[in-house]
Structure formats: C-alpha cells, structure tokens
C-alpha cells in the first residue's frame, strides 16, 4: 500500500502514538549526541544525522535485567522478567543500513535458541524506515549490496519528497496496520519527485572472493599488519548495527541482586579469557581477525548473510582509524 504523509502529519502521528502510550523511538539529540531514544514529543526528532548507535538497541538492549534474586535468611527467591511487559514500540526514522540490519539479527536470535527477549520486542515493534539523504566517505552500504533506498527490514518506508512530506509504502501487515490505524493522516501518493538520495562512493565488494580468501587464510601473516593498530576496545562492536554478542553478569549484594544481559565485544581481552587464565585469542590480531571472519565468513556459512550493512560507524568511531572497507577491499584484491 502506497501513501503520502506530510511532515506535519508525521509529527501528529508520532504525538498521537506517544499519547496512546506507545514508545516512539527515533533519532534525537542527547547532550549533544544524536541517538535513537524514546521521544517525549515528535519535535525532538532529528532526521538529518546518523545516530551514533544503531537501531538494534530497540530489540537487543545495551543492558537488560533477565532475572532478579532475593535472599531472606536461608530462603532464596528467583523472579524472571516477564517479556510480556516489553512496551509496544514504533521505531521511526531508521536509515536503510540500520533497518536492513534487523532481519540479519532475526536469523541469529531465532536460531537453535529462541531468544524471547529479542523476539518479543521484535513482535511488538513497528519499524518505519527513512531513505538516506546524507552520506560521507565512511559509508559503504552500496558495497555490501544495500542502497540509500533499501527497504529491507522496514515495515513502512518513507522517502522524503522534494516538495516536502514523505512518500510511504508499507512492506508488512504491521506497516499497513499503522497506516490503517491513522488513515486520516495519510493521503494518496502525489507525483512529486523524491529528493536526491545519498551516493556512497565505494564500489561493490566481491563478497564471494572475500569469503573465499577468508576460508583459506585463518592463519595468515597479513592479519598482523591489518590488526596491529587495534587497541582492543569495544567501540566498533557496540556501534555496529549487526554485532550481537552479549555477556551475562550478576550484579548486587549477597542479599539481593539482578542477573543482567549486556553487550560484549570480541575485541575485548576478557571476551575469551578463561577462568584458568588461558586466553585462546590472547593477541590483538587474533581478536580483530575474529571480527572480520564473523562478518564476512562465519555468518555467511551459518545464515547465508553478510554481517555488515556498510553504515560506516565503525570507520568513523575507531579510535585508531581502522577502516573495515579498506581491509575488505584489500582482501578482495588478494
């Protein structure tokens, strides 16, 4: 179903949703940094900047409680968190590189173990994509088979029009339900042309060739030169729309506390640090190799998808300027 919605109506739609108690998450400024966060009012939305963290947060939170424990004398009571309590959410203003990431995550979170925390949130969220109009030389979505107008992962996709307002098209029942639920705010599609979209310059990677190289070169001296720069922080993994590793830790005192699930990163030394003290990936190149392998080989082997949507966040934010596009490009030339 194709429709048109004006800028004003979109804000009204969001304010109505907020009023109804639905959690509306969109890019907004938080102490000077653009982030996907729940809005208090539609006016807070900032559409022109790529949020510093990806949209995966709505489904795979930075940190969430999964169980609480309480000790009264010798008696210990455990209480699970009931996923039913996750709020209805509408994720608005999601760039194609973030939106396309979510189906990639669906694969791993519904793999041999159904992660009800992720899936319940996934069920309760409608994703409203937004075509991408501004890219910088770090973006390389086109190189991994996406594009500024890619609708994959979006329930409803808005494309900004030259004369203002957005052409919107629904790609799932949730999308349609959203339109139907507020039909008065939508109008029939006009014929105004779309705004010129962003053009990332990187040309398409030969992902097949990259994977082939990676299949053979687990042990290779070039990993040293590629990864010597990496200092082992978690910035790239945490801002990446598709990285999904997490750690479970109990926090609290003897008397009471919570079991929490929070993001972890393979770049950390402690990620593979065994209780015995042994660490299979003790050197930084081994850890960084795992990042490339997981994104361009292991995920392909398991789910037939590339674990990278080319959003460029890891390139912009890497403390030591490691450029994954440069690395993949070099591998594709090997």
């Amino acid at each position, binding site marked *: 179903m194709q429709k048109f919605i004006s800028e004003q109506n979109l804000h009204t739609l969001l304010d109505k949703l907020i009023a109804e108690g639905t959690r509306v*998450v969109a890019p907004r400024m938080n102490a000077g940094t653009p982030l996907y*966060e*729940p809005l208090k009012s539609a006016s807070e939305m900032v559409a022109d900047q790529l949020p510093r963290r990806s949209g995966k*947060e*709505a489904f795979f*939170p*930075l*940190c*969430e*409680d999964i169980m*609480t424990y309480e000790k009264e004398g010798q008696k210990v009571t455990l209480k699970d*968190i009931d996923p039913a*309590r*996750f*709020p209805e959410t509408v994720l608005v203003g999601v760039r194609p590189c973030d939106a396309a990431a979510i189906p990639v995550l669906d694969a791993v979170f519904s793999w041999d173990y159904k992660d009800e925390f992720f899936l319940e949130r996934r069920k309760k969220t409608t994703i409203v994509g937004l075509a991408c109009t501004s890219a910088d030389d770090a973006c390389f979505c086109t190189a991994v088979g996406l594009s500024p107008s890619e609708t994959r992962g979006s329930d409803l996709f808005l494309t900004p029009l030259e004369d203002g307002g957005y052409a919107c098209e629904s790609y799932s029942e949730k999308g349609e339900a959203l339109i139907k639920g507020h039909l008065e705010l939508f109008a029939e599609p006009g014929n105004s042309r779309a705004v010129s979209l962003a053009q990332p310059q990187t040309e398409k990677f030969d992902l097949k060739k990259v994977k082939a190289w990676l299949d053979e070169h687990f042990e290779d001296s070039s990993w040293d030169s590629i990864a010597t720069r990496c200092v082992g922080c978690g910035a790239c993994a945490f801002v990446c729309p598709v990285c999904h590793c997490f750690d479970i830790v109990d926090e609290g*005192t003897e008397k009471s506390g919570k079991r929490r699930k929070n993001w972890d990163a393979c770049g950390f030394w402690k990620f593979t640090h065994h209780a015995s003290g042994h660490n299979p990936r003790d050197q930084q190149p081994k850890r960084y190799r795992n990042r490339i392998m997981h994104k361009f080989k292991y995920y392909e082997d398991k789910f037939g998808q590339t674990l990278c949507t080319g959003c460029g966040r890891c390139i912009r934010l890497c403390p030591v300027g490691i450029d994954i596009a440069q690395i993949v490009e070099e591998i594709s030339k090997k």
Partner: protein
Amino acid sequence: MHPEKQKHTFEPKIIAFVCTWCTYAGADLAGTSRMQYPPNVRVLKFPCTGRIDPVFILKAFQQGADGVLVSGCHPGDCHYIAGNFHARRRFAVFRKLLEFVGVDLNRLQFSWVSAAEGGKWVEVVTDLTEKVRAMGPMTEFRELALEEQWSGAINTPELEEAYNQI
C-alpha cells in the same frame, strides 16, 4: 512521578573508615569513658588510613551511606611512619573529584583522631550525623542505582515502588 513522602524522622546511615592504631582506639576510649553519641555510625577498621582506597568511599555511597567519615592518626603519629601522609594527599585530590562530579562534600568528613581523643571522636561523629540528618538522605547514588538504559527499562511495578521508597 514520586508522590510527596511525609517527613518521618530520617536516620542517616554513616560509614566510618578508621585506622586501628589511633581513631579506632579513640573510639574505644569513648566507649570505656561511656560517652554517648548517636548510633548511626558503622565503623570499619583498617591498619592505616594509607590502606583506605577512594573506591571504598564510592562503594559506601553506592551502598546507601548518607555520610562517610575517614579518620586516622595525626600527621607524624602514624604507626607506619607515612601512611597518613599519603592518605592526606590522596583524599585531598579525591574530594575535589567528587565535588566536581557533584557530590555534596558536607557528606564526606576527614579528621585526625588520636587514641587519646575519645571526646573528639564523639564530637566528629555527632557533628557529621546531625549535619547529614539535616541535609536528608543522599538521594544521588540511590536514584542513580535505579536508572536504567532506555532500551532495558521495563516499567514493572517493583520499579515504581522502588522509586517511591527513596
């Protein structure tokens, strides 16, 4: 979001980190002299103020202390020669950091109490207890402990009720 609480008499929780050679002995002297002082203080014994790590002060506030007292030997009296000199510098810098982050320094008291100054111990503890009682509970760290990242927050009844208790 919190209904206005009625003001019941608030009993501040004071944690005191003391060195065993001087202040702990001073507190013992206050005991043997049967001096009376408010029961809000809980005393932790250390070999020397040099052993008191600033993270313990942070930990104390996080665990709900409304006031923290750190006390040891007067400079020059340290049983370990220089423990309190290092501590003095460490705390001079740490309290500036806490102040900069927004902790009200009236809740953090440093003092020298020798083994003969039972009276001074009582005075320091009583002053701090009354001062903190007047200031009310230290809400900063308690509220902070309940804050969640937006994505992990679920408005559960316990969360509501916990908020009200602060």
